[in-house]
Each structure stands twice: as C-alpha cells, then as structure tokens.
C-alpha cells in the first residue's frame, strides 16, 4: 500500500484553478519528485497535501482521506511541509526554531538528541545556534527549515524548492544532507525542484507537471534517459 496517494486532485485559489486532476503516489520509505516549469502546480500540489489550499479529489495518507484537514492537523498525522520561502521564524533563535518543529512531541530526551543530530547534519547551524534565525544566510535558513521539519519526526517531508536562491555549492550541500537524512531517518519525501539534477540525487521516481496536469511519470532512470526531460530539466 502506498503511504501517500493523490487521486484526481484539483486545487484553486479563489476562482483560479491551478491543479486540474493530479494523481501520483509515494511508497513507504520512498522519495518521489515533482518536476515542472514555473506555474506548473508543484508548490500547489504540496499545499494540497498539507491542507493549506482548497482541493477536490482524494488525498489518502496511510489509507485515510486527509483532504480538507488543515495544516496543523496534517502535521499531527506526520506530514512536515518545508514551504517555499523556508518559513523561518526570524525572531526566534536557531535552537528555538528546532524546538518549534518538535512542538507535538513529548519525549524530551529524544528531542535533545534530535537537536544534536540536526546540528551534526548541518554544522553551519551549530555555530549559530543562539542567533536569531533572521540573521542566517539563505543557505543556513534552508538548512534550518529542513532541520525543523525533521524535528517533528514525520512520516513524510514535503520539500519545496530547497535550492531556490542558493549558490550551486550551497544547494549541493543542502541536498547532500537531505540524502543523508533520507537514508538515516527513514522518512519518505516528496521533492519539488526545478533543478532536476539535485532532485534526482534524492528521488526514486518523479512526476512531471505541466499547467496543473500530469505530463509524464517515470522512474529516475527512465526520466533521465529521455531526451525531452534532459533538455528541459537537466541542462542538455
């Protein structure tokens, strides 16, 4: 059984419909990518899953329809959304941001261990642990956003364009940590990314979206072998 399954999901902002019937699924401990140009509906698909946009169709998480639940309830079920723009809590310290991520947990000892794990995963944050998050660089804020999502001990992390606005080497470092997180933390991932090279370093398969519809679905190797995909997303 899939961990997460979208069936014919539509979504709209007011009268503007952005998704026109998206279907894909994510297996337990899997990682799937969502590729596509600007405006294809990648971000909206993640918002549909975390319940921050109005949808129709079915969104099944562990077999249960979660559509319409709202973000705090889906977070409770084990879905951690790392939003576009990172969602950093600027006036809170790095450590406090991580503790907010663990808000729903009660296992205080394990929380402390997990904070240390995040700081080990992102050594840059270690040095800034008492700084206001707003004072971090873009790359550090992205690392913090990923770390905060992990602190919830979720079943699924929804990752929205973690490379956006970062220097290539910084983006690479962020994705290396994400690959390590996937391996060590046994968490499934839905990865939205414009840079397919980065996405393919994490995911097993991917769905290509075009103007709110599924254009293509395939395994990592299938997609990387396709000329059209290579030209559009892999830089030739």
């Amino acid at each position, binding site marked *: 059984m899939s961990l997460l399954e979208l069936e014919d999901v539509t979504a709209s902002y007011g009268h503007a419909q952005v998704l026109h019937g998206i279907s894909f699924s994510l297996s337990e401990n899997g990682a799937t990518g969502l590729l596509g140009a600007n405006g294809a509906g990648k971000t909206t698909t993640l918002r549909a899953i*975390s319940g*921050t946009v109005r949808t129709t169709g079915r969104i099944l998480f562990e077999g249960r329809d979660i559509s319409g639940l*709202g*973000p*705090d309830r889906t*977070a*409770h079920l084990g879905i*951690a*959304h790392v*939003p576009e723009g990172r*969602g*950093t*809590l*600027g*006036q*809170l310290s790095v450590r*406090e941001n991580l*503790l*907010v*991520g663990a*808000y*729903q947990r009660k296992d205080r000892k394990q929380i402390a261990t997990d904070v240390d794990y995040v700081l080990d995963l992102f050594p840059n944050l270690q040095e800034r642990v008492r700084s*206001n998050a*707003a*004072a*971090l*660089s*873009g790359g550090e804020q992205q690392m913090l956003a990923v770390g*905060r999502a992990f602190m*919830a001990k979720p079943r699924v992390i929804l990752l929205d364009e973690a490379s956006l606005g970062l220097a290539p080497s910084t983006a690479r470092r962020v994705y290396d940590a994400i690959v390590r997180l996937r391996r060590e933390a046994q968490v499934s991932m839905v990865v939205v990314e414009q840079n397919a090279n980065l996405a393919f370093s994490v995911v097993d398969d991917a769905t290509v979206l075009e103007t709110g519809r599924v254009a293509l679905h395939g395994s990592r190797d299938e997609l990387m072998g396709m000329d059209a995909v290579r030209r559009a997303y892999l830089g030739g």
Partner: protein
Amino acid sequence: MSYFIQVVVDGLSNGAIYAAIALAIVLVYRATGLINFAQGGMAVTATFVAYALTRVGVPVLLALVVAVVFGFLLGALLERGVMRHFEGGDPDTAVVATIALLVVLSGLSAYFFGYEPHPFPSLFPNRTIEVLGVFVSLRSIGTITVLLVVMIALQLLFRSTKLGLAMRAVADNPRSSALSGLPVSRLLMIGWGLAAALGAIAGVLVAPQLFISPGMLDFVLVYALASAILGGLDSPIGAVVAAAFIGVVENLAGAYLDFIGDDLKIAVPFIAVIVILVVRPQGLFGRKVTVRV
C-alpha cells in the same frame, strides 16, 4: 537631598502605573504580533466588573480574582468573535480593528457606569510610611511588588515554557507555525485572554489612584505605549525599566525645571524617548530585528 529622593520615589509610583499597562501591551505583542489598542478598553471593562462587585460588598481581593477570570474570557471571546476575521490579513487592518474595540468597550462601560470617576477601594492599606525622611505609600510599594512578580512571570513564560515558545512562534509567522502543528487560532485566543487578564490586574492596581471611569486609562495608555516601545516592545523587563524611567524623568523635570512646571512636564519624557530611539531604534532591551533576504 531628601526632597530629591521624594521626587524620585513619587516618579517611581507613577511609573508603576504606566508599567502595569505596558506589560499588558508587551504580552499581547509577544503573543499576537500586534500592538493592541483594545488593551486599555479590556482592562477598564474588567476593572468595572471588579468595581461592581466591591459595591455589593465583595472583598477587593476576591473581586480582583473574578475580574481576572472575566478578563481572560473577554479577551478570548473578542479574539474568537472579532479578531479572528482579520488574522492572516493585513496587520494594519487588525490594528484598526483593535481601536474600534477600544471605542466600543469604553462606550459600553460608560453606558453602564457613566463617565464620572468613582472612587475605587485599594488592595493595600491606605497609609504612608516614612523611610529615611522619604514618604512612600503602602499602595505604591504593593503595586510595584505585584508588577515585579508579573514581570518575572512573563519573562519566564516567554523564555522557559513551551506555551511561551509557541506563542512567540505564532506571533512571528502564523502560517509557518501551523506547518509544525501549532494550533494557531487557539494560541492567539490564549494570548488575548492572558493580555486581558493582565489588564484586569493592572486596572485594579491603578484604579484607586486614578479613580475608575471609562477614560481612566486613556492618558496612561499613551505613557504605557511609550514605555513598551522604549523598552523594546518584546521585553517585559524593558517595559518596566522604561516606565520607571519615564515616571521619574517626568517628575524630576516638573520639580526642578521652573520653566516647565506641572503643565509641560509630560513633554519631557517623550522628548527623551525620541532621542533614545534615534540612537537605539530597537529600544533599551529589544532584540534587534534583523532581516536578510
């Protein structure tokens, strides 16, 4: 010398009044990210509840407890019924809504109790003691003690509790906080409730000195806002220190600068506040707001 100390001590007891409301402003700012003008209105309404109870013979302390509970419910109700419609929208709109609430609450108090000031019984004995040639009223000592306790409690709430951390997160970025599973609406409701409950304490503390009326806190609110901003807006300790500073400077200026006297003394602390904020925009104790993009 003893005259000087007397002037300072009197200034501190004025400062205590400003600090009481300033703490409530800081609390609601930390919990909701807004400057809440309805704060004064909620405080006065809750204080009138205490007043009505004392009129029928309820002891002041018990009346205070009831007013605090009433204040909490009033604040939570206003958040749920009115402010929730403005959440997620433009903060300026929400601030204007708080001004509307202030007008409505003051109007309601006036409707039931009239505009003229009424005497209000004090929590503390109405006596003055002499220490080293300086006269201090027990009421001022009591007010300052309660304020210090409240200040420490708020500092602990925001710095060392999970609830405080969650309230700060929601004030910082409600949408992003929801993604970590924080119950945003409920936290805002608790924030408003706590602010109004604190307003009730402040109101009952200052009413004996000011006499209770719907406009009792109007001028205090100006001082309290200045104190909160000077203290850094998000710092309970800063608000109290700034309120004491404003109270003392105002009194010293009135007493020692002949050309200023009682009428102009109100201007002096505000000029001082402006000068300090030019040099230190984040206030005395505020955290510097840094934004990098």
